[in-house]
């Protein structure tokens, strides 16, 4: 599970959709693996993706995994240093959460991650 993916997700419960606490989901009991082979650095793609990334949420998610090197502000403009962008790419795309849980800050429900795949199915009564 990449951090970029988590940045695009929120709690699937209908009643949580209106709560700001349902995004981002919070990591719990996670196993993290570095994946430098996956998805080679692509500057153009990263610059294009940044507008869709909720930066504050990303910084928080990264911190939950022990990564504190991201800039506080979203890097913008063509003049951003290569080193900074490479660091962002590594955190966004080359870091994998292999197992653990994603917890909703609003309802507390815990969604499991197994073999890198997150399970967002809800028991019938919660849909």
């Amino acid at each position: 599970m990449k951090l970029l993916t988590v940045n695009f997700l929120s709690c699937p419960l209908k009643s949580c959709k209106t709560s700001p606490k349902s995004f981002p989901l919070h990591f719990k009991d996670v196993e993290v693996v570095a994946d430098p082979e996956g998805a080679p650095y692509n500057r153009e793609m990263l610059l294009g993706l940044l507008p869709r990334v909720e930066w504050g949420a990303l910084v928080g998610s990264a911190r939950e995994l022990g990564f504190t090197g991201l800039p506080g502000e979203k890097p913008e403009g063509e003049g951003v240093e290569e080193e900074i962008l490479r660091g962002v790419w590594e955190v966004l795309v080359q870091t994998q959460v292999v197992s653990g849980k994603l917890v909703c800050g609003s309802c507390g429900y815990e969604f499991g991650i197994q073999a890198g795949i997150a399970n967002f199915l809800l028991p019938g009564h919660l849909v």
Partner: protein
Amino acid sequence: MLPTPSTSHLAFTHIYEPAEDSYLLLDTISSAYEAEFLRKQFPEGTSPPPLVLEVGTGSGVVLSFLTANASAIIGRGDVVALGTDINKYACRGTAETMRIELQRVQKAVAEANTASIAVPDPLTALSPGLFLAALNMDLFSALRPSLVDVLVFNPPYVPTPQAPTLPHPNFDVGISTFEVESRYLELAYAGGPTGMATTDRLLHGLDGVLSERGVLYLLLCAQNKPEEVAERLRRGYYGGSDGSEGDAQGGGVRWKVEKVGSSGRKSGWEVLSIWRVWR
């Protein structure tokens, strides 16, 4: 002809095996007609990179095809791919199909570069898009709104007496292997009495999940009465994300709808058709 991703690594016991409907979707989306539309809709160089979501990836053949051949299909290689499926086995299968297909493409790109074959901008022109994940969820329930640029959906479209039971924590507990497999496969085809049980739910959520320039490619069969579905979409029957209630009076979103593919006529009537839906 673009190559079809291999799915020979999968045992199709719990997952839908690619069939005529899957291939119709691939052929239609990669057609010259759609190539023209998609290039106009997502011009190269404009931000952000198109996010492609397939709901119900099954084996992952369609999503892998789109990701691997993004440049040829959409006219730009910077595509971000996401898949969802209600079936956890399909999620695993999709990740594997994608991994194998992307590896094949990356190898071909490396070989082309080594041989110095003259291609325009080799690295980006041939490189596949970025695969994010195949997530286990109902439709797009856990996705943030307004993110999807291209949504692809081959629904469980077969009319059945009842809509299927959706997975829950005890879904595969205490029953035979055969029964487990049946339940999972049923998720891939069972659509309730009109075959539209799941499709209607997706269409009601469409306005919320698509970006402003977002496009849906939807497969329907004759028994779904596709012309009526198209009219409902055009007339605002399906609800908007701003809370506007879709209904017979048309309070929801009025979509543009066009039939862009069909499996041809059998005994005088078309069986499968692909519909493009956009704002």
